[in-house]
């Protein structure tokens, strides 16, 4: 932050120390608590072993915590500036996955950048919100109500969603569309337009069905009728429900979940980790975790409502909504309320890129908080060297 020659209109440049004081450390502690719950469950999932998941989960978290603070302290106008470039770089990576990606679990999702393997679709969940926030920041409410102005943001949402759908990753594609939709809503797009799109989507459903892969069709069919595939996904859901239900109010106790420890539970370290928690800690533990998330979401709302720049408002709430969808879809899925889609529980599930996404999101939310008094002109930052 040193070395920038900033000429602020209203808020003067803050020193690093000032910024550090502005960071809401209670929320950072809350985030640590979530990761701690994750590590505990991963320890249990490996039958009381730090290896292979819990230890790496904590190391990743520690590294990413530094990143989170770094993001929070970076001037929000830098994020404003880099919103489009970040988005388009991610989009290029997504296209790259099409041609050079590694196939894992039957879908092309990973790209090898030499140093790390990355899931561009995960990164897109953040950069899409950045780009949309950047775009709607520059529109007045009247502009937003003109359909022509919605073409570009529609492209911003549909291009990556289409690419991700082709990988094929139905869950992430749906997440992108939901996050995009949330930003459209927050930006002030008329409600009837949403109804129109929803009606259109409903009408297109039979057509879309034919483009789904067989395993995706199976998942939806299984969801609608679990007995149609009791050996595949239906079996998983049945087992997951048994695990959840058998946990009761207070759970079976840490490391005591029979369903998970006897391997009845699939993917217990990633998608079904909530089931494990609910089996071992019961409804109390499950509601406790949901409560922790709820606190984070409330904080996200508070940040958004108190930001004095529209970009910050949209960014903070967009990312909060994004995280909310993660949590909701994952938990609803393991309870058999939604079809099985590969969506992890932020900070709790094992997985590097998902954690990177979550930590970056939290970092940006904190960043909006730290820089809440900075105003960014609607026409952008022309002339200002950032």
């Amino acid at each position: 932050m040193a070395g920038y020659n900033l000429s602020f209109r209203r808020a003067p440049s803050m020193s690093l120390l000032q910024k550090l004081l502005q960071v809401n450390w209670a929320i950072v502690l809350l985030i640590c608590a979530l990761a701690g719950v994750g590590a505990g469950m991963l320890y249990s999932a490996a039958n009381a072993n730090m290896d292979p998941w819990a230890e790496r989960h904590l190391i990743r978290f520690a590294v990413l915590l530094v990143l989170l603070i770094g993001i929070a302290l970076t001037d929000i106008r830098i994020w404003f500036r880099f919103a489009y470039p970040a988005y388009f770089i991610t989009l290029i990576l997504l296209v790259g996955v099409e041609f050079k990606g590694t196939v894992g679990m039957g879908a092309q999702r990973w790209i090898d950048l030499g140093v790390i393997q990355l899931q561009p679709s995960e990164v897109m969940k953040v950069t899409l919100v950045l780009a949309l926030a950047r775009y709607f920041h520059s529109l007045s409410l009247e502009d937003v109500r003109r359909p022509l102005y919605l073409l570009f943001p529609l492209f911003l949402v549909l291009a990556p969603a289409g690419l991700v759908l082709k990988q094929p990753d139905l869950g992430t594609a749906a997440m992108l569309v939901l996050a995009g939709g949330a930003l459209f809503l927050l930006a002030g797009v008329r409600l009837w337009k949403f109804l129109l799109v929803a009606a259109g989507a409903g009408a297109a459903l039979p057509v879309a069905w034919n483009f789904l892969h067989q395993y995706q069709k199976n998942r939806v069919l299984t969801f609608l009728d679990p007995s149609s595939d009791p050996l595949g996904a239906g079996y998983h859901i049945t087992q997951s429900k048994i695990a959840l239900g058998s946990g009761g109010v207070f759970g079976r106790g840490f490391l005591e979940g029979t369903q998970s420890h006897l391997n009845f539970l699939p993917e217990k370290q990633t998608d079904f980790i909530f089931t494990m928690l609910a089996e071992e800690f019961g409804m109390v533990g499950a509601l406790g975790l949901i409560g922790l998330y709820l606190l984070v979401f409330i904080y996200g709302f508070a940040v958004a409502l108190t930001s004095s720049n529209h970009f910050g408002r949209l960014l903070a709430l967009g990312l909060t909504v994004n995280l909310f969808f993660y949590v909701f879809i994952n938990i609803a899925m393991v309870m058999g309320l939604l079809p099985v889609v590969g969506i992890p529980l932020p900070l709790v599930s094992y997985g590097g890129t998902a954690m990177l996404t979550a930590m970056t999101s939290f970092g940006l939310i904190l960043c909006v908080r730290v820089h809440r008094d900075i105003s960014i002109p609607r026409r952008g930052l022309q002339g200002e060297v950032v």
Partner: protein
Amino acid sequence: MSRARTEEQNRQKSFTRRALLLGSAKVGLLSVLGARLYYLQVVDAERYRLLAEDNRISMRLSAPRRGRIIDRNGIALAVNRQNYQVHLVAEQAQDVDQTLDALTHIIHLDSEDRVRVKRDIAARRSFVPVRVKDNLTWDQVSRIAVNSVELPGVFVEAGQSRHYPYGPTLAHIVGYVGAVSEQDLTGDPVLELPGFRIGKNGIEKVHDEELRGRAGNTQVEVNAVGRVMQQISRVEGQPGHDVELTLDMGLQNYAHQRLIGERSASAIVMDAFTGDVLSLVSVPSYDPSAFTRGLSSSDWRSLVEDPLSPLSNKAISGQYAPGSTFKMVVSLAAMEHHIGPQEEVYCPGYMDLGNHRFHCWRRGGHGRMHMRDAIKQSCDVYFYDIAKRLGIDAIASMARRMGFGQTVGIDLPSERTGLMPTEDWKLANIGERWQGGETLIQAIGQGYMLATPLQLAVMTARLVNGGKAIRPHVTRRIVGVENITEEVKEESPDLGLMPLQVKSILDAMDAVCNEQRGTAYSARIHLPGWEMGGKTGTSQVRRITASERAAGIVRNEDLPWRRRDHALFVGYAPVHNPRYVCSVVVEHGGGGGSVAAPIARDLLIETQRRDPMDAMPPSPLAGLKE
């Protein structure tokens, strides 16, 4: 300035309203999660706790009924037979020996069976059924049922076994099913059922997935040791699809009977326009049912080691030098390179190239020959001459268009590619430059070249249909799924042959059979309107040395079988409105005209008589019958 501020305020207000809207939606959604948690973990907790603690849900699969294989007229070629098996549950039998003794009065049990049953019982938990004997007669089944009081724990289970009514006649096409091996496991749980059979060869293998169907399953609750407590749900399986072949079983039977007298031979009858294989025979054959039952290792060894290789489908995987049947390809290449059919070559009975002399099959020579005569009398020197002018690569490129040197894509396993040599091929694989003399040998279908009987039939079909690259196939349709004959018809690309040139070749093939001095004149079809056209081929399996030639060529009949020539013939009928094509290869049979052509004649007569494609004009006598 103030306008901008109002705008900004409006925007913020709208944002706040929308944010609250979104917020309440979220709270609503989270309450749904909470309610669901309450339902699962409080209301239904006891039920799930029981399920988790004392019971596990277990799946019992039931095998789907395998689809039938039928011919184009609906005749069943592979069917399922009800197969009754006796099972024994040790726990209910109490005294196993006593029960087995009682059972021996009804069905024959040798000591081997008893040892196996006792071993299986010892290996499993006492409530798991053990198979005692299968393939019971109905009489035995009913006697077990009547005596059930004396046979505690014994019950009869109905299973399915595959049956091939036509046995060896169809073994190479229909194939057989067999036990699932380690490599076959794909994760489909039905494959792990004890006694499940999957296609191992032929159509059974190619269309295994369609024939297999989907397993039914029963979800049962089992307790901690695996005993069934209660049935939760039952989903009936989906039977496999029937597969309809292009074969005409009557023709297939006839062809098999006609060929069975030869030691080792194969023949194909095909529709030139659709690629429907009407008959495909390879002798000797084997009994596919033996594989379904399970083959003893000595039987297996004798099949594999048989020098006549009954397991191999020679019609698609036998590779032979095509001999003179290749001359049509050379002629086509010549005409495309502007060597007209009227150009004449003088045949003195040999041709010298370098310091080597290449002989015509006819020692005295044929005299002046143009293309039609050269094909009709199979003059070698004529083809030496034009091949020398064309060069090997021009010939090879036409041969590839006609289907040689690659698989033609029939829907049966283990089709071979044959071999179509080129200059590059020789340099890469033998490491030597191509010799001019090798081009001459190639022109009469000898040398490096290898072709399958299927490729010969396909070449003939592509002539007859005017240059459509049809793909031969034995599957006509998968009932209720797809129509393969239609698909093939639509996807056949045009080879770009000139109609007049093709016509002149077909005309020469007509002459081969129906004009005096034609090499297949003695095997011609006498029935008016049913005449065939064709081309003979006799391919040497050894080189005739100069000293042998000097001593006079030994007649084939006087040679040991292994050293005799292969007899080949390709033909089509009816000659004036061609529809059906046929290729015949008799291994070490002798002359193409004397051995292969009569077989092809009989097959083509029978084909036209049965007329599976409804292509023949109604007989002029038909109206006079009454």
